[in-house]
């Protein structure tokens, strides 16, 4: 990157203040020193995550309303199916089996909204303005993806609390809980990028809303969130193998319940999926900027 010339100090702050009552802008005469190299992406990711947390602090409505659906899944669907004993869960109560699936589902539902949000930001000019800042597109998308992850993590905490209140015996091992957060962030990053990639293809909110509705349920039902993969018909098992949500649920079950899981595979799949998602979404971001 070439050196950025400093702003010429044609008007000293004092002189300007004296003439015509212009404001004193002593700090705003020098451009900030640019971060370079690897430091750029973490800095932008941090900035986007902070914005997400600030918004949540000002308006917690979304946090509360979004807790309703997972609560109903656990309370109505979970309690009923626990009594039915219809689904082989490997010896644990169905409600326990279900809880990690619902954490993954509610995190995915949050992340799927990011495509709609980025189109909304495009229409509002917010995205355009960010694209004119020294932020590489991949950094902007990574920032959004991690912001989705942060929001999904807060949601996961709420679901974990609801599950604990319903008597689900979850781990309280802090290391495992940190790993749970990581899984939720990776999942949130992938699904938000999936949604932002589709946004970059369809370009309008109306179309994306239709597609969002159309893909969330198949993603949910073709994963192991509600039932183990082993009870699925062969074709659905094949689809389930390609669905990152299955790996997320598997990791969450392993970490939260201690049930047999494939943590290394799960993490690898989630990291690769998130990276591919970031790549796809950032290469299509230019279409939204036009």
């Amino acid at each position, binding site marked *: *990157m*070439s050196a*950025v*010339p400093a*702003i*010429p*100090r*044609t*008007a000293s*702050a004092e002189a*300007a*203040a004296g*003439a*015509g*009552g*212009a*404001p*004193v*802008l*002593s*700090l*705003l*005469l*020098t*451009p*900030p*020193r*640019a*971060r370079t190299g690897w430091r750029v992406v973490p*800095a*932008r990711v*941090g*900035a986007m995550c*902070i*914005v997400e947390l*600030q*918004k949540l602090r*000002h*308006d917690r409505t979304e946090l509360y309303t979004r807790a309703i659906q997972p609560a109903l899944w656990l309370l109505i669907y979970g309690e009923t199916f626990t009594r039915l004993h219809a689904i082989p869960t490997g010896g644990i109560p169905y409600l326990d089996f279900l809880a990690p699936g619902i954490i993954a589902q509610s995190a995915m539902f949050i992340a799927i909204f990011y495509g709609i949000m980025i189109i909304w930001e495009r*229409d*509002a*000019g*917010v995205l*355009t*303005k*960010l*694209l*004119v*800042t*020294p*932020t*590489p597109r991949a950094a902007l998308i990574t920032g959004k993806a991690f912001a989705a992850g942060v929001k999904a993590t807060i949601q996961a905490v709420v679901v974990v609390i609801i599950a604990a209140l319903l008597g689900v015996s979850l781990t309280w091992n802090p290391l495992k809980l940190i790993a749970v957060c990581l899984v939720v962030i990776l999942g949130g990053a992938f699904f938000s990028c999936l949604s932002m990639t589709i946004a970059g293809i369809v370009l309008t909110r109306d179309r994306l809303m239709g597609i969002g509705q159309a893909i969330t349920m198949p993603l949910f039902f073709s994963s192991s969130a509600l039932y183990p993969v082993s009870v699925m018909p062969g074709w659905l098992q094949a689809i389930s193998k390609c669905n990152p949500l299955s790996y997320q649920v598997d990791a969450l079950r392993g970490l939260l319940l201690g049930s047999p899981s494939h943590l290394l595979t799960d993490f690898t799949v989630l990291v690769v999926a998130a990276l591919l998602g970031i790549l796809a979404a950032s290469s299509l971001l*230019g279409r939204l*900027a*036009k």
Partner: protein
Amino acid sequence: MTTQEAASAATASTDPTESAAVRCTGLEYAFGSTKAVDRLDLTVRTGEIFGLLGPNGAGKTTAIRAITTLLPVPEGMISVFGADVAKDKMSVRRLLGYVPQQLSADGGLTGRENVALFARVYDVSRRERAARVAEALEAVALTESADRLASTFSGGMVRRLELAQALVSAPRLLILDEPTIGLDPIARTSVWERILEIKEATGMTVLVTTHYMDEAEQYCDRVALMHKGRIRALGTPDELKADLPGEYTAPSLEDVFRYHAGSGLQGADGQSDGEDFRDVRRTRNTANRVR
């Protein structure tokens, strides 16, 4: 000065020692078969307030989007303080402060948080951030309301907040796309007063698009009249008015525009009527959103 002379004078004054703020050479951009910008030659001198005027659909916004690195343009067409927009995007972006046409502040954040976000993405150090943000807010007279959500701001306040966002990185070139669209006369004046004060205090160059001829006449050092993707006349407002033939007594910039473009400012033809509708709808949507 005739139109052609005016247009060529814009590029002919290439002084090797003078580094122009913006230099566009033969800029072209088409959306499908519609040429939005057609062989545009334009030089914005360092330190001036340059107005790009024209009706909706004249190509102003497309030109601005090309200069701000948002549209892919070939190398060599646009440079900002000597940095090529196609080749050296990141350096160009560091020189720019950009306020788009829509009211683009984030309503879910406070005024201060909106500005702090831009301080962060421009790498303002943590040590300096709070002071810089406060100074930018002070410059646009928003200190009192800084900790309120931007969704409670009026249109004029949002515009001033956006100025603060653009200002926080100490840009050398401030680009404003229709900064007063949809604002009432008092808010319009207030926004312009801030722009002038900031320009005076920092010495930055200002490139502004507008279709309010009165604003251009009052605030711009030089203006270019754009119509159907091309510049039809260029000069100081007084020069342009003086160059009109004798039948105009006390002409306005609007007369100048009519003379050069051969039509009025609103709904010049069927095509720009379509643009009008889209623009109006977008502006209204924005106004609703911010409320």
